[in-house]
């Protein structure tokens, strides 16, 4: 097994100039990157046909490490660039990695409209419930009552549920995983990339430095344990007779629907407009 991992590292990581990486020891981002690489490898995509876009923040730095076509855009705008890329060259597999603030605060408008539009894109949203890179300010997913560097008296806003938000906005596929459940995570990412339509994977992750420390959640291992204890497989949740307790969340495939994808619909418009000339 270690041999297999080493092979993947050599195949997909850039060897020149980009290491050591910027993430803190114990960060969940590395686990997400690992799962993403394994998913891409399993699907068998060529490196040339993958475009990995990102925004700003700790998640934004992910793509510099990997040997794909990588596009590190502006804060929250990753999906807008991805939209342009996909429309210009629909044969590319375009994946956009974002953080919770990146995707749902500054990029919230782009996220819901991308979901509604249904281009064949994959959004990977790492939700660590905080702005990590800038020093622990509260984000749209910081829980009510918790603490952040801009919420030292306790947070009074309520959270977005990223998975439910995007499903309601019309995403064709929505999955939620955690950085504890790595096998599920890889499977979700695989399914999301292979889904024809706009797909979202929300990944619950740990920022022990800025969220965990302030909220007394312990070291990375303790936080992963917390993720394990609070994640409920969606199938199990559906069988439950009572509502899910507020501090728990579902994991698994939350939405999977078939709907026409944008590029194919647009091709019909092209054909129609040409014949009407």
């Amino acid at each position, binding site marked *: 097994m270690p041999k297999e991992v080493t092979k993947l590292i050599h195949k997909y990581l850039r060897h020149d100039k980009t290491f050591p990486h910027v993430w803190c020891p114990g960060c969940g981002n590395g686990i997400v990157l690992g799962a993403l690489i394994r998913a891409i490898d399993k699907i068998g995509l060529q490196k*040339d046909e993958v475009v990995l876009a990102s925004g700003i923040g700790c998640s934004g730095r992910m793509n510099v490490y990997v040997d794909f*076509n990588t596009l590190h855009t*502006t804060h929250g705008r990753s999906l807008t660039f991805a939209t342009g890329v996909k*429309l*210009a*060259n629909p044969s590319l597999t375009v994946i956009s990695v974002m953080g919770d603030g990146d995707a749902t605060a500054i990029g919230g408008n*782009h996220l819901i409209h991308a979901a509604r539009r249904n281009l064949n894109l994959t959004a990977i949203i790492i939700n660590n419930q905080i702005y990590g890179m800038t020093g622990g300010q509260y984000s749209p997913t910081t829980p009510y009552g918790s603490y952040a560097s801009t919420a030292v008296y306790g947070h009074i806003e309520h959270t977005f549920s990223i998975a439910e938000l995007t499903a309601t906005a019309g995403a064709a596929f929505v999955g939620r995983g955690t950085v504890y459940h790595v096998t599920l995570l890889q499977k979700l990412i695989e399914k999301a990339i292979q889904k024809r339509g706009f797909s979202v994977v929300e990944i619950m992750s740990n920022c022990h430095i800025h969220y965990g420390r302030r909220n007394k959640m312990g070291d990375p291992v303790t936080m992963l344990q917390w993720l394990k204890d609070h994640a409920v497989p969606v199938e199990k949740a559906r069988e439950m007779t009572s509502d899910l307790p507020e501090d728990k969340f579902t994991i698994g495939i939350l939405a999977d629907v078939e709907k026409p994808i944008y590029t194919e619909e647009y091709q019909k418009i*092209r054909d129609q407009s040409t014949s009407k000339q």
Partner: protein
Amino acid sequence: MTKRQSKKRILLQGNEAVVEGALAAGCRFFAGYPITPASEISEVLSVRLPKIGGTFIQMEDEIASMGAIVGASLAGVKSMTATSGPGFSLMQENLGFACIAEVPCVVVNVMRGGPSTGLPTNPAQGDVMQARWGTHGDHPIIVLAVSTALECFEITVKAFNLSEKYRVPVIILSDEMVAHTRETVTLPPHDEIEVIDRITPSMPPEWYIPYKNNSKGVPPMSALGDGFRHHVTGLVHDVRGFPTQTPHEIEAFISRLFRKVTQGFHEIQITQSYLMDDATVAVIAYGSVVRSAQRAIIDARNQGVKAGLLQLTTLFPFPRHVVENVLKQCRFVLVPEMNIGQISREVKRVNQFGTHVEKYNRIDGQLITPDEICVKLLTTLG
């Protein structure tokens, strides 16, 4: 046997002429958001682009529109967006990305009165300095102004060519009057239109260094997916595209961005002189004011004043040398603008010759008329 294409005379408004120019230049991707007085550009392209295999998309806002055209251009397709003041403000962020990542693209700003929502249906020229300095940080950019429907066509082609050649975003400043005035335009046959495409890498992918300097300062540009995998970022980057904080790499990078444009001044700085040969008095104008100025200098000549006109098509990089020659030649220079005086400050900045420079401004959403310019010339001269 191909039939020789002929010239085409058609009635076009400025916005429609921009579309013709864009399509002739090879634009195949447009992303936009509805806004007066630029919406016709979106509407016409939504009809035309799919017919020729291109793509039109209406995005959720102008931030997204700008992001989408940069993405499409990175994937190898010539791209454009069009907007007006409020939308142009929203585009500044991703326009900066296009500057630092050297992504060719064309942004049309059909100027209306500002600030904020301002005067949506009135012409103005208040966005000149925003076009130059709207996005943060030191950056090179090309700004072109149009005054007629024909220029909307020709300058849009030119804008794409310059953008592709220098890998720099090009802003076209139109205004409500130019955009909505219908004029007969004689379009040249397609085979007579010069179209320049970006230089793509000719070396094997493993030799490709995406931001390596060369004599032109413009590195070849690969398209996403064509085998030349590399990193594109809005961070200051080294020659390989990776973020850097090393002072000498930062300095070399920013300097190259400016040098590539400086080296092209001779072809980037477009101006046109009218009756300047024997002029002792000159008007310097751009955009729709040029139309009034053309008439005004003839009227002034009928009154015995040797007046000439310098039309600035390129506003930035500011065509300093041509303006300096006019300042040297004339004893009086008038700069009429539909703002409080944005280009007149540039003219005064380069005036090292003690020439009398005056501005003439309207900020009431109305055009400057030929009479006003003529009277201003005559009264100033006494």
